[in-house]
């Protein structure tokens, strides 16, 4: 008898969870190069002659908020996520939202806010061992993209863009607002768009805060879109 009641209980739970929205709310990032899914160490054609490959693509998502009719209705606690294009599980950020909460927009930041940037050593995704902290000039790298292209007349044809900065006038934290569906928001990051706009032939390294990092971050933002 006990066994049956347990069985019914488990089945009951299964049904209950199925009755809810099939996908719980999340932001899911999909890095692509044009029509292809972005993969590590794969050469992608920029045009008939030139190509590019990516060795690293990492960025911080922080300060996630849900908005309903222009009002913030939910803020994620301890909202710091390191997204790594080549670590599948890091691409999906589940949002632990109370059931029945209504929302229509989402806000999140690309990067780490200035208060956190001046608060000393942090753990978890913010741990300086994650390769996203500048050692010689304090601050987080908000967005990092590294790779190789024949367009770069550098050692090993490498390029490195480390975009950060928390201090005025080079505060490089970017807030993004998007329409939020009830379930999952699929955000596409198209590296082809970024590469075509990037000055690969002239500028191969950005490693500190400043105008160039600000400009490049704007280009990154322009490469984000919602997957329909």
């Amino acid at each position, binding site marked *: 008898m006990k066994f049956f009641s347990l069985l019914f209980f488990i089945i009951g739970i299964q049904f209950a969870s199925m009755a809810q929205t099939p996908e719980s709310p999340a932001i899911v990032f999909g890095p692509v190069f044009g029509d292809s899914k972005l993969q590590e160490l794969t050469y992608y054609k920029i045009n008939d002659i030139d190509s590019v490959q990516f060795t690293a693509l990492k960025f911080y998502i922080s300060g996630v908020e849900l908005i309903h009719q222009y009002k913030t209705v939910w803020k994620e606690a301890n909202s710091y996520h390191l997204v790594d294009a080549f670590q599948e599980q890091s691409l999906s950020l589940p949002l632990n939202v109370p059931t029945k909460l209504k929302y229509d927009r989402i806000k999140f930041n690309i990067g780490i806010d200035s208060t956190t940037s001046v*608060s*000393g*050593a942090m753990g978890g995704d*913010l741990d300086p061992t994650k390769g996203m902290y500048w*050692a*010689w000039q*304090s601050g987080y790298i908000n967005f990092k993209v590294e790779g190789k292209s024949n367009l770069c007349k550098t050692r090993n044809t490498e390029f490195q863009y480390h975009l950060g900065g928390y201090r005025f006038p080079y505060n490089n934290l970017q807030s993004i607002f998007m329409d939020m569906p009830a379930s999952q928001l699929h955000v596409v990051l198209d590296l082809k768009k970024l590469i075509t706009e990037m000055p690969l032939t002239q500028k191969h390294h950005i490693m500190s805060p400043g105008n160039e990092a600000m400009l490049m971050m704007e280009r990154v933002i322009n490469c984000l879109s919602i997957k329909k």
Partner: protein
Amino acid sequence: MKYRIIIVILVCILLSAFHMATEQLFVAPENWPETTYDFSKNPLTLQKVELGRKLFYDPILSKNNSISCASCHSQYSAFTHVDHDLSHGIEDRIGTRNSPTLMNLAWHKSFMWDGAINHLDVQALGPISHPDEMGEKIENVVLKLQQSKKYPALFYKAFKDSLITGEHLLKSISQFMLTLVCSNTKYDSVMRKQTQFTTQERNGYMLFQKNCGSCHTEPLFTNLEFENNGLAVDPTLNDSGRMKVTGNKKDSLKFKVPTLRNIEFSYPYMHDGRFKRLSDVLKHYTSSVLQSPTLSAHLQTPVVLSSNEKVDLTAFLLTLSDKSFLFNPKYSFSK
């Protein structure tokens, strides 16, 4: 009744023991300004301080296990490096600046000569990763520590977690550095009315207050700001100082004002260690301050000192030595 008294006494002893245990790790001297460091985010414990001390003296932090923090920050010179004008690192590489002293860091709001580091916790990342200093990656330091025989147990003792993280590593080094409080100089004793200056020292103190005190503010003997003190640019270094960090021309040639505590033992002086003797420093301020758009407001009128006054001023500067700091066994290499 008797029992009650005994219990009260026992509780008192216990409480005072706890009080002493926490008090000994960090004591802010009376009448000093508020500390900047937020101790609530990294409360000092004996285990963490001791772990930080071990790490401070361990060359495992460097790429080829040859250089420790103490290599350029030795206790007997107030945690700087007296043999070299510029700091030196692995494989005999030479850096571009004079290693600063380490004292009273809980009061500092930025670190390094240009203030590029914004918090004590992340300060160690600078020298660990600099190719001319320790040349190592923090990820790799964590790996080496995790694979070592002694460190997982020490991290467990300190953080109740034998999995070593960058956060725990850095916070323990901070803990040790925070305990480096220098507050027992003759100057401090005079301020506490426990002793008196000699006539010469008192005269020197007055000259100090008039000519030096606006940047080397008491009781820390630094205003913790960035100033251009009129040094000629060394063409082999071309160091623009604070401007490198802010990108602002107004910060050109500004460097963080160093403390004068233990100045007797922390030569050579200036960000590039160009002066070996205190007399060279005084000579600079009285005769070779260069005018430039960013010269400190406090140096706009020339400093005038007679040779007798220089002797008196030097006598005062020597009252800023703290032997109990320089030879404190708690700060030295722990076996």
